């Protein structure tokens, strides 16, 4: 394959970012902010290590509180990255190539945030390795009937596969950056990270195999991991958590929130890194359509849940439904419905889908709405279960909010480093798509 002019342009455009970042001032500003948030994380987690979960608001009956609702939220966001990268790779949808790299990175960091939550939620976080089956002096094995064990395996598997997938994907581009790097240090560092990639025919053949294989492993994980999350609810004898729609509902919600975040990132990066030629309006349009579609499927989940309770007619399920509409946490139900589905309807219009700023706002609204949904699912079910004697309220403490702010930092800081130092877009795949279809805009 000989490099054509447009090839060179694309490689140059993408690889210039790690080497000469276009907007260093803004980047530093954002990075400073994310370091501040990261600081919050260390303060909140440090205080938690010293004082235990007692400093949080969760207690019987609402043991899970913000920690677990954020866990579900973050993990859900992560799923869109895998969907975009792996599913669309396997289905040969080439337009993904402008989006997959940063979507995968988003997945990776979202999964890290998600994984931290159940660990911090343990009474003694430093003993988290007890969740792994290993020979120990207590001759204990993890309880495989426990959702905690499922979480452990789900998150670990997902993290490993996401990391592998992202890294395998980025290797050829790291080599491009290496070849263009000017300083010796950059050459050595990128060179090491590129694992000696020379782009020979054999390299490419192996790479194809590895990449497609990991993709094939990753796709079912999206479904299984978030189904696991939903079954972790169903494992508890709690009214409102037993609907059979749960797995599908959770997976769709996950994709929905994830697409929203991908859209937010796409709009931001496109603007900040001047990538208008690569992340085109067509991409934003497609993302918006995906958002609309997954949003409607999620809405179906809402309708079905209500139907399920009414049709089943269980007294307690009806009571929970009633609590959702009018109870103490009704704001989270209506918050979810309004933020998720009302602005979303604008996406029916082509004109709206072509306006990045509006898309950004709609996506933000969805992210907020999905946050409410995760919160609502936990609170409205847990605070009133079958036994009146175990009713109680939950109010998150300031520490939990601080930890949440910190977790955003845990997400943003490495993501910004990624944006600064690594090729955010898969240059060679964009080129490939270009060659096969002639023009990106109509890919």
């Amino acid at each position, binding site marked *: 394959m000989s490099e054509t002019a447009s090839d060179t342009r694309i490689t140059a455009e993408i690889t210039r970012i790690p080497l000469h970042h276009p907007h260093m001032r803004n980047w530093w500003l954002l990075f400073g902010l994310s370091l501040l948030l990261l600081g919050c994380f260390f303060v909140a987690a440090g205080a938690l290590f010293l004082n235990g979960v007692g400093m949080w608001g969760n207690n019987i009956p609402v043991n899970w509180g913000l920690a677990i609702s954020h866990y579900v939220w973050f993990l859900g966001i992560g799923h869109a990255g895998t969907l975009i990268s792996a599913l669309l790779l396997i289905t040969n949808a080439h337009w993904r190539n402008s989006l997959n790299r940063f979507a995968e990175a988003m997945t990776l960091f979202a999964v890290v945030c998600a994984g931290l939550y159940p660990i911090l939620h343990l009474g003694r976080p430093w003993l988290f390795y007890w969740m792994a089956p290993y020979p120990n002096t*207590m*001759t204990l094995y993890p309880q495989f009937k426990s959702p905690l064990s499922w979480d452990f395996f789900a998150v670990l598997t997902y993290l490993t596969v996401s990391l592998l997938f992202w890294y395998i994907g980025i290797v050829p581009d790291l080599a491009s950056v290496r070849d263009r790097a000017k300083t010796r240090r950059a*050459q050595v560092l990128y060179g090491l990270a590129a694992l*000696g990639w020379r782009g020979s025919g054999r390299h490419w053949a192996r790479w194809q195999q590895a990449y497609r294989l990991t993709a094939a492993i990753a796709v079912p994980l999206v479904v299984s991991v978030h189904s696991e999350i939903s079954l972790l609810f169903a494992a508890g004898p709690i009214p409102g958590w037993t609907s059979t729609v749960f797995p599908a509902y959770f997976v769709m919600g996950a994709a929905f929130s994830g697409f929203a975040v991908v859209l937010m990132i796409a709009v931001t990066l496109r603007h900040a890194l001047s990538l208008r030629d690569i992340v085109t309006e067509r991409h934003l349009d497609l993302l918006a359509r995906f958002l609309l579609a997954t949003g409607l499927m999620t809405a179906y989940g809402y309708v079905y849940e209500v139907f399920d309770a009414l049709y089943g007619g269980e007294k307690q399920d009806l009571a929970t439904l009633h609590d959702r509409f009018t109870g103490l946490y009704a704001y989270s139900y209506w918050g979810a419905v309004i933020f998720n589905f009302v602005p979303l309807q604008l996406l029916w219009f082509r004109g709206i889908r072509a306006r990045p700023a509006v898309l950004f706002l709609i996506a933000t609204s969805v992210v907020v709405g999905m946050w409410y949904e995760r919160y609502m699912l936990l609170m409205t079910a847990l605070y009133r279960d079958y036994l009146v004697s175990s009713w109680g309220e939950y109010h998150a403490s300031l520490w939990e909010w601080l930890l949440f702010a910190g977790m955003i930092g845990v997400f943003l800081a490495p993501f910004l480093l990624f944006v600064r130092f690594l090729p955010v877009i898969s240059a060679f795949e964009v080129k490939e798509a270009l060659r096969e279809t002639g023009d990106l805009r109509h890919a």
Partner: protein
Amino acid sequence: MAQIFTASADTRLRAAALLGVVALVMALVVLGGYADSSYATLVGWVEHQPVPFSHQHHVGELGIDCRYCHAAAETGAHAGLPSTFTCMTCHSQVWTGAPMLAPVRASLASGKPLEWQRVARLPDYVYFDHSIHLSRGVPCVTCHGRVDRMPLMSRAQPFQMQWCLDCHRNPAPHLRPPAEITRMDWSNWDEEPGIHAVYGELMTKVYGIEPAKLTQCNICHR
């Protein structure tokens, strides 16, 4: 521009990756070894005691019964440590002026008990009871080792959960006649397999010991 990576760079990268894997495996092995090492379990380590009390001397040579000093062993959860008066039953007569025993005399005069450093101790979330073990005939030596050969007291068994469970799963071979629980040397027990081979099995039935129950978490974590 000079080449940054020589032709052997790939090989060296692979070697480094291999080394990383080896290091990881080694680290796991070391960690596993540590968990069972006497450094972690404290087996065989002595504590600095206010008086260098020798079980070897008092038990092995003088032949004093454990229960003379650990009186509550058969009746209570804790065997208990002897009071200063217990020492003084003899040391008001023998070795009365020994400088080694000065803290004992000071304790008697002031009424402040000696502060022994514990060596055989469980974390406080574990429930243990001597009386049940002794009434079923588990001898002291099974858990505390050859105390009569210890110039200074040290832990003889790891006291890990694993160790408790190993016996609770199959206590029969450890059972002895309850009248002889303080006996230290059982080497001739197995020399009479005819009588003794079935003793444990038999007594397990007599006492109605059910290993399945003995391994339930709430037996030891209440």
